[in-house]
């Protein structure tokens, strides 16, 4: 039986649409994966010696921050890990025991990307520990313990999947813990560190996470088995429609009609909602750069600022018109002017960018120059990048499955020479302009140039729209064919 399941899995993997891309892209993806794997391995090795160098006991320090590492893992999973349900639908009517199906689909999640990535960090780290004379038994129980905790999170995520309330509570607690740690109010690591350290020091302690894992597996198993009928869990959850007429948008004519639709698109679809979450995270991208003195004042300041204000712009815009892929045939048979269609998407991007600019006001904490860079790149994003992003989108031919959050990390099919051609300048131009300012030894020259590019773009808006309209028109048949191919 397991053999059958495994062949099915293998076929679904090899025959997935993403595999049928060109060779160059496969190589590119392989290199990227290798790079990340290498980064993790390097971190695993580097963490030990790095911590030792600054005079900290490596294992104890890793254990201290382990809780936050696990929290971060939990967050990531909630947003991006897909729960395997629908794929077992065809198996239900076949002569297979329900228990086998449940064991298999739960077992499958163990091999998930979200679990295996950790190995690239923990295996090298454990090996380094062994080389440096740590107790063999201790390292093994520690490693085993952490692995068990990660698997525990895996099953926990399945249990709480799609329960926004629970997630909200957990997220609030985590943010509270981080904040109180930062302000020295309460340090959770004092309580959790001994536990993780204990896994190393007292071998018997590994039984604790293992037994918890067994218990949660038992729960998840029953939970799944109980709902293993077509009208329960396997049936796509039906939400009652929230009625919001957004009638105030009617005053904008056809633009309003499209805007109403796009807002509903964003609010009611899982995939589109992910875009909103991602845009929110992009808002804090600048913290990586602005908190470190080596980046401050350098060209990377412009780079970071583009992402801070442009999170929504980039995440949403690069998939125009693919957002409408599932009903593209309808759109193509209605008398719609491409101009009004584009205009609505553009306005949505402008509104999103404006909100990001407003929310990014807290960066003023890092000084006036950082703040004004953000404002200038905001204008640049609205007036210049918005068009580049739409051009990228015009060549992106991906059927978007609005109901699943998968593919939010950029779709492989979206990658081609033309999209790359329009994507790179989005970041490079502001960096170059900022660099001009640095060369001229006047910060404000660079900033003004960046803002000027934005204003210039606005002046040529109707011209640029015409170009994009022509691309849409020319690519119409290709787009329809591409959008029919669902993953």
């Amino acid at each position, binding site marked *: 039986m397991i053999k059958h399941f495994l062949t099915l899995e293998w076929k679904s993997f090899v025959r997935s649409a993403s595999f049928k891309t060109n060779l160059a892209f496969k190589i590119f993806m392989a290199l990227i994966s290798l790079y990340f794997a290498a980064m993790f391995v390097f971190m695993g090795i580097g963490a030990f010696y790095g911590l030792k160098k600054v005079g900290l006991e490596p294992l104890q320090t890793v254990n201290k921050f382990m809780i936050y590492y696990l929290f971060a893992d939990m967050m990531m999973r909630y947003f991006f890990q897909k729960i395997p349900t629908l794929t077992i639908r065809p198996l239900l009517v076949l002569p297979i025991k329900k228990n086998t199906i449940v064991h298999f689909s739960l077992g499958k999640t163990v091999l998930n990307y979200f679990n295996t990535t950790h190995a690239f960090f923990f295996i090298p780290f454990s090996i380094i520990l062994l080389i440096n004379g740590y107790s063999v038994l201790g390292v093994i129980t520690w490693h085993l313990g952490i692995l068990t905790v990660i698997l525990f999170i895996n099953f926990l995520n399945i249990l709480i999947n799609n329960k926004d309330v629970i997630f909200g509570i957990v997220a609030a607690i985590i943010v509270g813990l981080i904040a109180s740690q930062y302000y020295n109010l309460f340090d959770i690591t004092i309580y959790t560190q001994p536990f993780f350290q204990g896994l190393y020091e007292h071998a018997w302690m590994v039984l604790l996470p293992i037994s918890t894992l067994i218990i949660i597996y038992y729960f998840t198993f029953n939970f799944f088995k109980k709902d293993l009928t077509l009208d329960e869990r396997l049936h*796509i959850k*039906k*939400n*009652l*429609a929230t*009625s919001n007429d957004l009638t105030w948008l009617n005053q904008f004519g*056809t633009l309003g*009609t499209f805007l*109403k*639709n796009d807002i*509903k*698109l964003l609010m*009611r*679809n899982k995939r589109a909602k992910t875009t909103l979450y991602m845009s929110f995270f992009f808002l804090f991208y600048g913290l990586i750069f602005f908190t470190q003195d080596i980046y401050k004042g350098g060209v990377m300041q412009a780079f970071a600022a583009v992402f801070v204000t442009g999170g929504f712009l980039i995440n949403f815009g690069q998939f125009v018109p693919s957002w409408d892929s*599932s*009903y*593209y*045939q*309808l759109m*193509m*048979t*209605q*008398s*719609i002017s491409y101009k009004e269609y584009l205009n609505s998407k553009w306005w949505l991007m402008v509104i999103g960018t404006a909100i990001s600019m407003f929310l990014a006001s807290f960066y003023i904490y890092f000084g006036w120059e950082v703040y004004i860079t953000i404002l200038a790149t905001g204008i640049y994003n609205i007036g210049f990048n918005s068009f580049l992003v739409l051009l990228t989108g015009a060549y992106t031919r991906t059927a978007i499955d*609005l*109901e699943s959050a998968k593919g939010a990390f950029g779709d492989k099919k979206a990658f081609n020479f033309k999209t790359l051609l329009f994507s790179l300048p989005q970041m490079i131009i502001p960096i170059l302009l900022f660099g001009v300012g640095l060369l001229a030894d006047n910060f404000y020259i660079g900033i003004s140039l960046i803002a000027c590019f934005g204003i210039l773009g606005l002046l040529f808006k109707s011209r640029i729209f015409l170009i994009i309209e022509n691309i849409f028109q020319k690519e119409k*048949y290709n787009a*329809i*064919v591409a959008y*029919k191919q669902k993953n």
Partner: protein
Amino acid sequence: MIQVNNLTKKYNATTVLNIQELEIPKGQSFGLVGNNGAGKTTFFSLLLDLIEPTTGGIINHNVVVNTSENWKNFTGAFLDESFLIGYLTAEEYFYFIGELRGQNKADVDALLKKYEEFFNNEILNTKKYLRDLSKGNMKKVGIIATLIGNPEVVILDEPFANLDPTTVNRLKKIVKELAENPDVTVLISSHDLLHTVEVCNRIVALNKGEVVKDINTSEETLKELEAFFAV
């Protein structure tokens, strides 16, 4: 009037549609029958400019379909679920289409009122998104949406499939009413010979992309078609 001239569609070397000449006069109710792969949906897709013809073209009321977009103003069509917007409720969808076709809320409401019986209380005010409706109910929404804005050409691909018997009869009534209007041309494709014969005054049978029968409906039509498709 819809004129088809020298229309072919080829995928690589395979010809999937080849219609030398076909004329559908204004006001006709036109039925397209044929087995799977006969080219029915291909023909409708060409008529809606969703695919590119290999040669020739279609003229819909003096508009060359694959060069101008003006046919969109007087043509309503429903081919499959990809014509529905899954995250809207039925009402929102109808109003959206209405706004695109220059109809206000009252116009759309009046039309929906007229087809209340067809919906059978399963569509309106249910607070369900279209993606959560059953196939049959999706079809009901799609069919009625094509009628918004009084189109002169109505194109329905397999409208009878997936509908329950009562709804099929109601749909036949609706199509017959449309056909009685001399300004409205109705085009329907179907596997079901009986239904098609009942509502259409002309029937064309396609086989492997070619027109093999072209008959004006009469008493004998059904027998003739059944004999043709008999195994």
